[in-house]
């Protein structure tokens, strides 16, 4: 069963500006789902809809297989969230900020010290949150999201403002929460490289459309499919017909012959074949797309 599922989620802020054009999102139980997309793609809009911060216009949203609207309070009890910029009372200390929410969640008081410890903010004492650095505010926001011991975490760019060390710590923390407590995590980001080491599933959104959704291995196999060989010869026209006689689907682009990736032995054979036909081969390269290139291709 999917922990979070949306079907055909459409949202328009105004008649002209359609932010989401039918998002189908499936976050399986226990997944760490990376929600990727460039600025303005619709990530925050999707997450705000999931949490009921925007009025739903079209489509369905369900958590644990139940529609969100009818189970709003029961669902929110199990969700921890961080949406965009930190949401913190500047005139209160870290502890007081958490106490505000502890009263509502009615979780044990010692949870406050626990989550502060978890994000490394135990020592801030009487310092007001308004005086925190951006990274400290972000850490406090993460503590807030974890206060009620949620079974789902929805985090919108949580690494925003964190230093490299903070990013690594955060990644470790999320991995641990996912493995030890079986928390399902939905995390958005601009950069695939930033969350590639963390996620099990990926959704790529661009201009309000879901361009790809699947497991990380599925995305990697997509990467292999788009990797190719590039060959430079003295007579590309003849070379092309020889190669295509071998049932290889080659074509000429930018003075190079481009064909799908082949095993090593096949490359050697093909080279011999070309040389035998008196064609000079001066270059054979494999062009491997990294995940980032795939991502860029998807959002072109």
């Amino acid at each position, binding site marked *: 069963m999917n922990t979070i599922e949306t079907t055909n989620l459409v949202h328009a802020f105004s008649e002209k500006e359609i932010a989401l054009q039918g998002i189908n999102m499936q976050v399986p139980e226990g997944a760490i789902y990376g929600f990727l997309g460039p600025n303005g793609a619709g990530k925050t809009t999707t997450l705000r809809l999931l949490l*009921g*911060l*925007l009025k739903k216009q079209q489509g369905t949203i369900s958590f644990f297989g139940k529609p969100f609207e009818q189970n709003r309070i029961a669902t929110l009890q199990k*969700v921890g969230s961080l949406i965009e910029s930190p*949401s913190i009372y500047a*005139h209160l200390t870290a502890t007081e900020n958490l106490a*505000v929410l502890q009263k509502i969640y009615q979780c044990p008081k010692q949870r406050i010290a626990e989550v502060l410890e978890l994000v490394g903010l135990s020592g801030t004492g009487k310092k007001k949150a308004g005086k925190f650095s951006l990274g400290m505010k972000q850490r406090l926001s993460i503590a807030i999201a974890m206060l009620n011991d949620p079974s789902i975490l929805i985090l919108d760019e949580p690494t925003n403002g964190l230093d490299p060390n903070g990013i690594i710590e955060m990644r470790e923390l999320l991995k641990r929460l996912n493995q030890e407590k079986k928390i399902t995590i939905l995390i958005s980001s601009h950069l695939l490289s930033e969350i590639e080491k963390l996620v099990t599933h990926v959704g790529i959104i661009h201009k309000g459309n879901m361009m790809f959704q699947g497991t990380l291995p599925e995305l990697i196999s997509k990467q292999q499919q788009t990797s190719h060989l590039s060959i430079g010869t003295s007579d590309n026209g003849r070379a092309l017909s020889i190669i295509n006689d071998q049932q290889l689907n080659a074509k000429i682009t930018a003075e190079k012959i481009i064909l799908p990736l082949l095993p090593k032995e096949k490359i050697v054979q093909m080279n011999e074949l070309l040389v035998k036909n008196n064609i000079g081969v001066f270059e054979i390269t494999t062009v491997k797309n990294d995940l980032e290139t795939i991502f860029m291709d998807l959002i072109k």
Partner: protein
Amino acid sequence: MITSFIHSFQSELIKKRRTAASWLMLMSALFMPALIIFMRMISFDSTYKEVGLKHFWEMIWFRNWAAMGMFFLPLSIILFASLITNLEFKNNTWKQLHTTPQSLTVIFFSKFAVIMLMLIQLFIVFNIGIYLSAIVPSVLFRAVAFPAQPFPFYPYLKGSFKFFIDCLPIVALQYLLSLMFKNFIVPIAAGFGLLVASLLAMNWKYGYLVPYTYCPMNFKENQGKIDPSIHLHTCALIYFVVFMIAAYILYIRKKEKG
């Protein structure tokens, strides 16, 4: 629902800590009493005589309430309502508050309850202030006797209660405006505008229909200058209920909740 409300209310009280709310309440409650104590101390002659008057307590009441009812009370309400709601706008915290597991109704009423609590505190402190403005000169100067008449507890309570009812439309409309506008200048400016308009409307035939006039109208009523067929306090209550319902509906229907 009730327990959820209590928890939410407690949470709202934590947020109010260290804000200007309590200072604001104390200043506005004690400004007139302090001024009156000062005036009575420098005009010793009249202070010496007036304590023996039959209408002494009535006089003290009127002196304190005149500026309070026309100005400080409405002003305080305008500021209280803005302060409580602006806390969420300023800190970008509506979104966190609206993803907590509680109904919007509970959030709406627990914020309202905090404003009402501040208002009640204002009334209590102000009444203590009135009492002090009556007896402090007697405590400080041997020559000034304590008031001859006993403290009129019941009329004071009744008078305060009337003002309380009369200011409720202001509470509700300011709450509505403060919830709707992120920029706190809007509710404050609108509040001032309505306050000035209501003072100007005091002598107009239909002035009693202007929702912020009931506090100043209270004085006219005491002087018997109001047509007895017009029930000022009932009008105030009706406005209060209407504004509250409007505020609730607008809040619940808000498209963007953070």
